[in-house]
């Protein structure tokens, strides 16, 4: 019954591989960008692949930081700082909202949202 042991070994190895892959940082959808909207109008669009900081507004101020393929609002002078606390976003469809400044930042492009359309 040595084959039984090898079977179990194979199963254990595959489970370990699945777990490892699961714990690895997931790459963001290729080509994804962040779209910045104020009052529903697009005021900027930046690829997630390039690190940069963008300062949005002057009196109503938000600092958008793009780093390592993810975007976050790292500074803001809005009252509640919900946008800052949202943290980093990198998946298509994720968004950061700053209501006081009527600002919305969302991740667009990339493949993952296309998946809903795929029939298996």
């Amino acid at each position: 019954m040595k084959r039984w042991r090898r079977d179990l070994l194979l199963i254990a190895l595959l489970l370990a591989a699945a777990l490892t892959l699961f714990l690895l940082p997931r790459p963001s959808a290729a080509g994804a960008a962040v779209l910045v909207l104020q009052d529903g109008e697009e005021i900027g669009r930046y690829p997630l692949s390039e690190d940069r900081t963008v300062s949005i507004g002057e009196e109503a101020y938000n600092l958008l930081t793009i780093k390592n393929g993810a975007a976050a609002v790292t500074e803001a002078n809005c009252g509640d700082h919900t946008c800052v606390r949202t943290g980093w976003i990198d998946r298509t469809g994720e968004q950061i909202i700053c209501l006081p400044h009527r600002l919305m930042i969302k991740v667009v492009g990339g493949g993952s949202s296309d998946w809903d359309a795929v029939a298996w």
Partner: protein
Amino acid sequence: MKGRLVARYGLLTALAMVLSYIETLIPLSFAVPGVKLGLANLTVIFALYRLGPKPAAALSLLRVALVSFTFGNAYSFWYSLAGAVLSFLIMALLRRQDWFGELGVSVAGGVCHNIGQIAVAAIVLRSTAAAYYLPVLLLSGVLTGMAVGAAAAVLIRRIPPFER
């Protein structure tokens, strides 16, 4: 003699189709597309052990074609085909090398089926985002492969030998 072979393969093909249909009634892919029980693999593994690799290959390909044309669409045909071919090649190799029992063969087959599907999805979508589902599909391949392999092991031993 020939009539017996036709009947035998027909029976297994029909069984594979029925199992594939039953599978569509059990929706497992609520979170991740492509998660399936892989029940039809039961017949392929059975054929691999009891009839040999060639009949098993024929059964696997016939099943994919028939099931896709009946229940699926153009996309699902290519996904299933890629999954079935990769899965079958690995299972046939492992069976011949005799490294693993039915359980190991089935688990390897289940995982490879999913890997084949992801590869086609990556090509179709021109996106590596498909790899995002790899861990979940690996896990589901192992779990369903264990269930199917355990069942196959019992069937291979219990079903009386075919007459020559």
